[in-house]
């Protein structure tokens, strides 16, 4: 069996990047379904206010779905931002710094969003 890790890892050729491509699409479908689930609940009869809004997010299944979407968004945005940095930022040091910033930014936002849904 050929070695495909460490210094022997194959980083070129066909299918390199299909994992990122697939994860971006799977997470996109999840976010689209979440949007649909949220819009349907907002449009259900009843006055739009704090009680309706917080009621939507108080259901356990909605908390779990929102959590999955938060993680999906972080993964999806990571792939997208990495693409942008790789396309436009050529100096390796600056690109690394921006990629690290993107990860920190997304993890920070994800943590905050999770805190919002689970302290209710």
């Amino acid at each position, binding site marked *: 069996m050929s070695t495909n890790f460490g210094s022997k890892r194959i980083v070129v050729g066909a299918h390199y990047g299909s994992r990122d491509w697939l994860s971006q*699409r799977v997470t*996109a*479908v999840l*976010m*689209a379904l979440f*949007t649909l689930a949220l819009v349907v609940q907002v449009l259900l009869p009843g006055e739009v*206010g*704090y009680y309706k*809004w*917080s009621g939507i*997010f108080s259901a356990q299944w909605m908390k779990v779905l929102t959590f999955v979407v938060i993680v999906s968004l972080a993964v999806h*945005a990571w792939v*997208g*931002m990495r693409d*942008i940095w790789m396309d436009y930022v050529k100096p390796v040091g600056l690109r690394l710094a921006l990629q690290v910033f*993107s990860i920190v*930014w*997304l993890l*920070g*936002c994800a943590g*905050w*969003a999770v805190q*919002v*849904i689970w*302290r*209710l």
Partner: protein
Amino acid sequence: MADTLKERPVYRNIHISDIRTYRLPPAGIVSILHRVSGALMFLLLPFVIWLFDNSLTSEISFDRFASVFTAGAGFLPGWFIKLVCLGLIWAYLHHAIAGIRHLWMDMTHSVSKEQGRSSAIITLASSVLLTVALGAKLFGLF
């Protein structure tokens, strides 16, 4: 042989200064706006979570969330917050519709030149129309 090699045209990526004069087909406009809208939402993510936080945490914070759109926040007036939200609404709609277009193309292999053009125009038009409708609601026109 050496002479013909020298005469071959050289195509490079467009330079940043060519952007104003470089004309893109509709699919190209959808593509670059997909990127711009994604980057915009990435940068404004803390603002969205701040709104989400205030809208959900308590009745008091919900009132604060609602008043941001009328009274503003800090030195930023309410109309500016509304304008930023309108930008986010467009970014979300364009990114989502352009994304669905991608998924549709992946699943059905609808990648002819005509399909690419017509679906790009549909993407641009539907995202702008929905943004106008939601924007009218946001600014209290109906």
